[in-house]
């Protein structure tokens, strides 16, 4: 609780929303690592999940335009390389509108941590279809059903070249917390996709009106990445693959930039 601005509690999230759980894990991860919140910059975009660090967490926060938190975070990290830059945003924000920023930040291997809270929908703006909405789910903009295939963001970022990629749900709180700590420690682009309930905008259309329905679904459908090797794509269609996808060492962008500056202009 010492990392939070207590005067604005209770949070603005709906009852059963997973964003509070993510904030809870984030605060606990910072606490267990013993980090000073004054050394953290949280950059967020627009959406429900962008309300996670700002205004509740006692750190510097930058609430930016829709889909562009990674562009802002690039600037912050280049000018303040000693600070931990964390981007927390939703699926519609950095996978939908800012999708290209995500791919190219991962390609450059910029030293930031990105926590993508995937709630399957554009929740704040009224439940429009997002790139991660599962096929067949009705939404406000697809009233009959969604006919598009959902995007697998963690796999995409892993292929784009990030240093650390993991996927967890809000049910797996302890591994999620551990993963967040690893993301903080990792030099390079660390990305965690967190599947989160949205019982109000997404769940009401498919009969999952409580947060518990989602957590039970995560519990049933989740399968560890170590166990999927022998399964076909068809068997995995309805499952959620969780775990650590990638953990590797690659050259980091800000370091290379500084080195180049030193060589060419001497500062």
């Amino acid at each position, binding site marked *: *609780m010492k990392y*939070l601005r207590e005067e604005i*509690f*209770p*949070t603005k*999230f709906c*009852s*059963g*929303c*997973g*964003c*509070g*759980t993510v*904030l*809870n*894990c984030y605060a*606990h991860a910072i606490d267990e690592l013993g980090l000073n919140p004054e050394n953290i910059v949280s950059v967020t975009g627009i959406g429900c999940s962008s309300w996670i660090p700002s205004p509740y967490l006692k750190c510097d926060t930058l609430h930016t335009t829709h889909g562009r938190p990674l562009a802002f975070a690039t600037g912050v990290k280049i000018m303040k390389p000693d600070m931990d830059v964390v981007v927390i945003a939703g699926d519609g924000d950095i996978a939908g509108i800012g999708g290209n920023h995500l791919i190219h930040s991962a390609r450059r291997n910029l030293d930031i941590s990105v926590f993508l809270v995937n709630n399957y929908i554009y929740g704040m703006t009224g439940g429009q279809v997002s790139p991660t909405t599962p096929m067949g789910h009705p939404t406000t903009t697809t009233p009959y059903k969604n006919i598009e295939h959902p995007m697998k963001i963690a796999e995409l970022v892993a292929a784009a070249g990030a240093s650390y990629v993991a996927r967890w749900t*809000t*049910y797996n*709180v*302890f591994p999620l*917390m551990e993963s967040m700590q690893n993301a903080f420690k990792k030099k390079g682009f660390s990305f965690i996709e967190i599947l989160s309930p949205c019982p109000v905008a997404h769940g009401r259309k498919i009969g999952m009106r*409580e*947060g*518990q329905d989602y*957590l039970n679904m995560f519990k049933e459908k989740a399968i560890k990445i170590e166990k999927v090797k022998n399964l076909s794509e068809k068997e995995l269609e309805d499952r959620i693959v969780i775990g650590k996808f990638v953990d590797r060492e690659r050259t980091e962008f800000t370091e290379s930039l500084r080195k180049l500056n030193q060589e060419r202009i001497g500062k």
Partner: protein
Amino acid sequence: MIEIDEELCKGCGICTDFCPMKVLETSDKINKKGYYPPKAVKEDECLGCRLCELLCPEFAIFIINE
């Protein structure tokens, strides 16, 4: 020891459903916002696993391990 801040609770019921020992139960009192917060009915059976503390989206439950 289980510490519950009843005024922060939004009554989602995640803590009562997912407690492995079913220590928590929905109480019949309502808080200022009109939600039913949980109450600890079998506090001596609590394992101190902190699942409720981490799952709670509202920072309403804290487990203090002695």
